[in-house]
């Protein structure tokens, strides 16, 4: 509301200034107009004097006086005086002392005594006046009452006051209205903020869908989007925590049962302990992977970046994996372009590739094939692994990069469900994305990198 008042005062002041300028311009314009009228009249009368002499001028002035009279409301007055100050023609009774015969318009004070007797209801005042002296010593004076000008000025002044008042009132009203809507919108945002603060993360800012959107609606939309992201992340986090608890409790329970079993035994051999140790080892691996994932997401591993010979690394790994594939009767095809370098971390890139290879080997059936390629095109390097034997829905594709998410048929096999999460994080660190696609029963994992030149 204070804002509205301030704005309306400012607006009123601006209107007032504008009106004052207008007022000055109007009165100035009128005066200029009068002056040029007076000059024009004088020129015409001068011509009459030079052509028809004193007589002609007297006749013209008398006629003008009658015309003025017949108009009933004369605004122009004349005075024609002889050299010895005898009034020859005109309606004025007296030659004002200040009136100079210099052919220039100047404001002269006319008092009641100067004016015609029958028009004394006229206001006296400063009127624009022009006067001249002829060769025979006679003098002519023309003046115009600014009565109508004053009326115009009065009207302008009235309009000005009216407009300024109207503008002030309207702007105050509009400001109040606007303030009310804005306050309402801010209040909504505040309410949502309070709800979210008290833990209701699902709350959203109420938005006017019908109204034209302003900045506050936009703020609301942004806040809602932000809340959605936060809620999603929180849920993901919750899911991960639950998955951790779930995935870790099972092996821990098994180890506990095994150890309790051994406690009852009299002698314990190292073989007895083997399965418990294996369980614990896997638990540790899971924790290590989780820690690594956390580090990759939180810190800046780029400090370990150097020029990595991706072609050499790919060739070395591809060779061994082709043999592993061969052992499982899987055909391994590879296409690796030479001389591709990346600005990256060799350890991480190798880890990511191994994870992808292991995945491919795990899901590809005997007799099918895996295709691995590292290619450079227009300064961008593509690393892709394609394999058959895995049918995933789009939903599943989105899910499988999340920690601990495993496909049902992989639950029974080894692994902790962090492999693809790690690959994703590693590629992200390298400024790339892990893109997973399924087409015609072919699963493809691809990442595009900016190559090191």
């Amino acid at each position, binding site marked *: 509301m204070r804002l509205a008042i301030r704005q309306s005062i400012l607006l009123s002041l601006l209107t007032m200034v504008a009106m004052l300028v207008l007022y000055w311009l109007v009165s100035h314009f009128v005066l200029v107009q009068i002056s040029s009228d007076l000059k024009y009249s004088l020129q015409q009368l001068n011509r009459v004097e030079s052509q028809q002499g004193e007589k002609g001028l007297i006749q013209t002035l008398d006629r003008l006086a009658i015309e003025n009279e017949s108009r009933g409301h004369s605004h122009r007055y004349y005075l024609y005086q002889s050299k010895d100050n005898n009034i020859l023609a005109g309606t004025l009774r007296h030659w004002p002392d200040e009136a100079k015969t210099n052919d220039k318009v100047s404001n002269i004070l006319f008092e009641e005594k100067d004016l015609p007797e029958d028009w004394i209801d006229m206001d006296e005042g400063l009127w624009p006046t022009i006067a001249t002296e002829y060769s025979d010593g006679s003098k002519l004076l023309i003046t115009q009452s600014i009565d109508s000008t004053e009326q115009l000025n009065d009207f302008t002044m009235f309009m000005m006051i009216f407009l300024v008042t109207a503008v002030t009132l309207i702007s105050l009203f509009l400001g109040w209205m606007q303030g009310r809507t804005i306050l309402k919108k801010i209040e909504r945002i505040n309410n949502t903020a309070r709800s979210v603060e008290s833990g209701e993360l699902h709350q959203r800012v109420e938005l006017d869908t019908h109204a034209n959107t302003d900045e506050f609606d936009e703020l609301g939309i942004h806040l809602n989007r932000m809340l959605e992201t936060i809620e999603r992340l929180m849920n993901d986090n919750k899911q991960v925590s639950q998955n951790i608890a779930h995935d870790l409790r099972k092996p821990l329970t098994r180890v506990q049962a095994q150890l309790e079993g051994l406690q009852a035994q009299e002698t314990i051999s190292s073989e007895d302990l*083997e399965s418990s140790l294996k369980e614990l*080892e896997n638990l*540790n*691996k899971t924790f*290590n*992977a989780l*820690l*690594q994932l956390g*580090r990759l997401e939180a810190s800046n*591993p780029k*400090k*370990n970046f150097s020029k990595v010979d991706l072609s050499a690394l790919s060739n*070395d*790994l591809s*060779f*061994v994996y082709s*043999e*592993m594939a061969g*052992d499982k009767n899987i055909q391994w095809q590879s296409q690796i372009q030479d001389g591709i370098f990346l600005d990256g*971390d*060799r*350890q991480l890139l*190798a*880890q990511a590739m*191994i994870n992808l*290879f*292991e995945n491919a080997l795990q899901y590809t059936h005997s007799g099918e094939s895996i295709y691995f390629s590292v290619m450079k095109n227009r300064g961008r390097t593509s690393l892709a692994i394609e394999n058959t034997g895995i049918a995933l829905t789009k939903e599943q594709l989105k899910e499988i990069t999340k920690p601990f998410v495993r496909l049902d048929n992989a639950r029974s096999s*080894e*692994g902790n469900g962090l492999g693809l999460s790690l690959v994703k994080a590693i590629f992200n660190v390298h400024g790339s994305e892990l893109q997973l696609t399924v087409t015609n029963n072919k699963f493809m994992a691809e990442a595009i990198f900016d190559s090191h030149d």
Partner: protein
Amino acid sequence: MKILIVEDDPTAATTLSKSLQAHGMTTQIARDGEKALAAISENNFEVIIMDRMMPKMDGIEALGKIRNQGIATPVLILSALGEVDERVEGLEAGGDDYLVKPYALSELIARLNALYKRNHSVQKSDKEWMVAFGVKLNTINGKVFRDDVRVQLQPQERKLLEYFLRHPNQVMTRKMLLEKVWDFHFETDSNLIDTQISRLRTKLDKPFSKALIHTIRGKGYVFAEDLSSIE
């Protein structure tokens, strides 16, 4: 083998000490860097196990002081940190090997043995040829012979053999081989090493009467003529 364990956690230190003693090693425990320096000046150790994170003087600082005193005893750094640059930092400070906690005991013992033997084995091979048990590897042109028969190896397989030739009769864990042959310092369930070993065997062992590459169950691999000498 006489080992100094520098570790601030008493439980971890005594557990480790007992485990190593069970494997026939002699151990002494120092609770921090300063005590380690004192122990080293009094006794001769063959390997030092140094914890990375310790109060007072951390592992890296203590290691620096040990090396400054001209003591060349091999040092294995134990760390709960696993970032690559931490490892590099440890090795640059004068560490000889780096193992991230948690680790398997067999892994630690294999590494301790490797460090011990590295200091005690006499270099039999000359610069050009690496030789062991009738296997010869030319370090210049990469040619490999067994009993003077040429054996064709892939580059990574040759690297593996080279490492075996450097460390005959020593148990090598998968992790050690991944580190030495591939320079991979991360945890993986990959059968990378096993596959390579299997290929190396096909080429180096199968055509000949006596196998040289042996699997030690639960521990790793060993390159040896006679397994009875391996503990």
